[in-house]
């Protein structure tokens, strides 16, 4: 008799041990994934954070109408095409007198960004009174200076291995001593389109492009996807071969690599319908194809999860099938439908492969105004910057990734909030 209790006790101990082991496996799995995620996030944010700051240089600019080549004309057109480059270069020469030699002169001009002349142009056009006066202005610093200010260039390296030579460092030291060099919040990063000069490059164009593309995707994929799901779930004849075939195909489509949708878009939308390349309209159409299966599958799952008693009650009280579906079943399934849609949209937001085929992987400096203007999207912008030779683009790449991650978090939060809200309503 004693042996039986002992046996049970032994078994119990084994079972507890097994349970504990399983929990440890689970915990360590979570720990490992958190470690990976953290190392990724830390890596991205440490390289990306410097991009939110930008170095500016202060220069006294003598806005001389003679240097501007104005000839006494002050119309907006004359002001637009005046020679601002000369004025900026002359101001730099005044600041650093006695710079000789072709190479050194060129290096001096390259202290400040190429955008200085355009900044000055806009300043003069907006305030024509400043002509023939002296103004103290802040300009963007060239990417090399910016990288140096953020500690990206090691002073102790031999001169030949540095992007900035000794005489350039001496200029920077003088500017620093005179408080003419300053790091500020990089507002350009959020207000400018793409540029090949890292200090001028911003993500506004890509963000608007992403927004417009997502808008097209949402307006197409949500109504089409949800309608298809409702029909298949509520109205389609059960145990019909055609319905089965459609269902299998939708599930298959969800697993097709996204580049295939790009090829399809290229052949059908561009080749057959003649929609121009590179615009959010075509991007949205292609991404719609890609997100439709996700939305249909998740919406069907949500509709299936609605308790049959609701349907029976409605039908029993004399509601038609359409009334039952739209007054009772769909509202009950809405949280699930919305979650599926938002997850599908988030997936589309991070997609680049299908866009490659339809020309959205391109250099586009202007911020798009409508769904028919050429544009890129955020992930494409990240890809393009990561491929650029300039060192200063590395940090901008990471910063753009941070923005994209932020948007994805916001979208997923939205999914949670919507679900909560709709669940409460009922």
């Amino acid at each position: 008799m004693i042996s039986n209790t002992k046996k049970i006790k032994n078994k119990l101990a084994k079972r507890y041990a097994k349970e504990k082991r399983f929990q440890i496996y689970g915990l360590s799995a979570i720990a490992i994934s958190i470690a990976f995620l953290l190392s990724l996030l830390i890596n991205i944010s440490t390289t990306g954070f410097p991009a939110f700051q930008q170095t500016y240089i202060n220069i006294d600019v003598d806005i001389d109408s003679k240097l501007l080549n104005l000839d006494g004309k002050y119309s907006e057109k004359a002001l637009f095409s005046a020679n601002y480059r000369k004025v900026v270069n002359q101001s730099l020469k005044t600041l650093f007198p006695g710079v000789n030699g072709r190479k050194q002169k060129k290096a001096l001009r390259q202290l400040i960004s190429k955008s200085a002349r355009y900044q000055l142009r806009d300043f003069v056009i907006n305030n024509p009174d400043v002509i023939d006066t002296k103004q103290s202005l802040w300009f963007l610093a060239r990417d090399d200076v910016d990288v140096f200010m953020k500690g990206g260039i090691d002073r102790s390296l031999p001169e030949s291995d540095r992007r900035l030579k000794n005489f350039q460092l001496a200029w920077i030291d003088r500017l620093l001593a005179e408080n003419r060099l300053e790091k500020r919040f990089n507002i350009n990063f959020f207000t400018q389109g793409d540029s090949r000069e890292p200090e001028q490059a911003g993500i506004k164009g890509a963000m608007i492009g992403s927004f417009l593309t997502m808008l097209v995707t949402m307006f197409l994929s949500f109504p089409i996807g949800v309608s298809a799901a409702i029909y298949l779930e509520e109205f389609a004849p059960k145990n019909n071969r055609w319905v089965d075939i459609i269902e299998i195909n939708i599930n298959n489509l969800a697993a097709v690599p996204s580049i295939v949708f790009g090829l399809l878009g290229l052949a059908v939308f561009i080749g057959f319908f003649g929609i121009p390349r590179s615009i959010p309209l075509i991007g949205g159409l292609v991404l719609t194809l890609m997100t439709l299966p996700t939305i249909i599958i998740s919406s069907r799952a949500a509709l299936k999860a609605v308790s049959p008693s609701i349907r029976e009650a409605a039908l029993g009280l004399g509601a038609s099938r359409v009334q039952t579906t739209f007054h009772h079943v769909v509202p009950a399934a809405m949280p699930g439908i919305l979650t599926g849609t938002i997850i599908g949209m988030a997936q589309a937001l991070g997609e680049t492969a299908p866009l490659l085929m339809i020309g959205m992987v391109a250099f586009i400096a202007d911020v798009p105004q409508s769904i028919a203007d050429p544009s890129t999207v955020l992930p494409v912008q990240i890809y393009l910057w990561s491929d650029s030779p300039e060192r200063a683009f590395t940090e901008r790449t990471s910063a753009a990734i941070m923005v994209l991650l932020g948007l994805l978090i916001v979208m997923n939060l939205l999914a949670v909030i919507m679900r909560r809200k709709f669940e409460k309503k009922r």
Partner: protein
Amino acid sequence: MINNYKLATTLTSAAIVVLSVSSYGALVSRGHIDIVGSSTVYPFATVVAETYGKNTGSKTPKIESTGSGGGMKLFCAGNGIATPDITNSSRRIKSSEYKKCQKNGVKDIVEVKIGFDGIAVANSKKSPVFNLTRRELFLALAKQTPSLKTGELVDNPYTKWSDINAKLPNTKIEVLGPPPTSGTRDAFVELALQGGCFTYSWIKQIKKDSKIAKKAGNKSLASQLKRKYKNICHSIREDGAYIEAGENDNLIVEKLKTNPNALGVFGYSFLDQNSDVVQGAIIDGVKIDFEAIANGSYPISRPLYFYVKKSHVGKVPGIKEFIAEFTSEDAWGEDGYLTDKGLIPLSDNERQNMSYSANNLVPFKM
């Protein structure tokens, strides 16, 4: 509830209508220049496009990096706003492509040579500088190499640099380079490997024979011989010594930093930007730098081009002004902003001639 749904449907359809109406105008005409083509020319063309846009206040051209071959395909597809106005190329247009253009009605093409690009073979600064000949590069990377004893082709037996030449370091042959889709790879194979390959006179003889056969009118023999020498000279080994590192040159630089024994193949602009971590090898006794590429003494360099569809000039606004910006001294001159990005300028004389024919839109014949 039902009102909500009615509202939602109405809003959706209204939005679609508004969006499509507002975009219709842009679908039938185009306000911006459309450029496609080589990923090597891309960094230069984009800077010009941006400067053009900012200087003139008109729309900045759209530039897609499709590779030289892909660009030509789109460019030669026909006339009309659905096709690009300009294509960039890191090699000259092929006669087959030119014929295709002509067939599709793209008759007048303006060719603009913009400068040179050098291809660097580089390693980490932690290791000594490599001193290679093109023949050694060929022996290190070709799929089959002539055997030392018999001269017959055998599968590449070399695993270490010192196997090829005792003066070279005693390390494993490990070269990171671009994949076959890349124009840089084409140029590297053509200039470096084929250059090394032709130092064997019997291989060069095949090419000569092929030309003789072509002249004699024996087309099938000519193409057969051509295929033969291309097979020898253009095939890169696939046993792991040459590692395809993708189109991303930054990635190759990163990998060289962590692996001091590896060599990398990439464009000169990346070497220029990363001169603190990587160094270019000496090829045939010439060190890669700005001057050596410009005067042609560095052997692995190639000219870069762009091609303009003349029929689009006047229909798409700004093409003439864009060409003027590209061919201005401020851009492609010796002190121009393109040299900052790593473009090696043409000689003064060549620039002048090019600028004249480009700005007057003189079409070229092949």
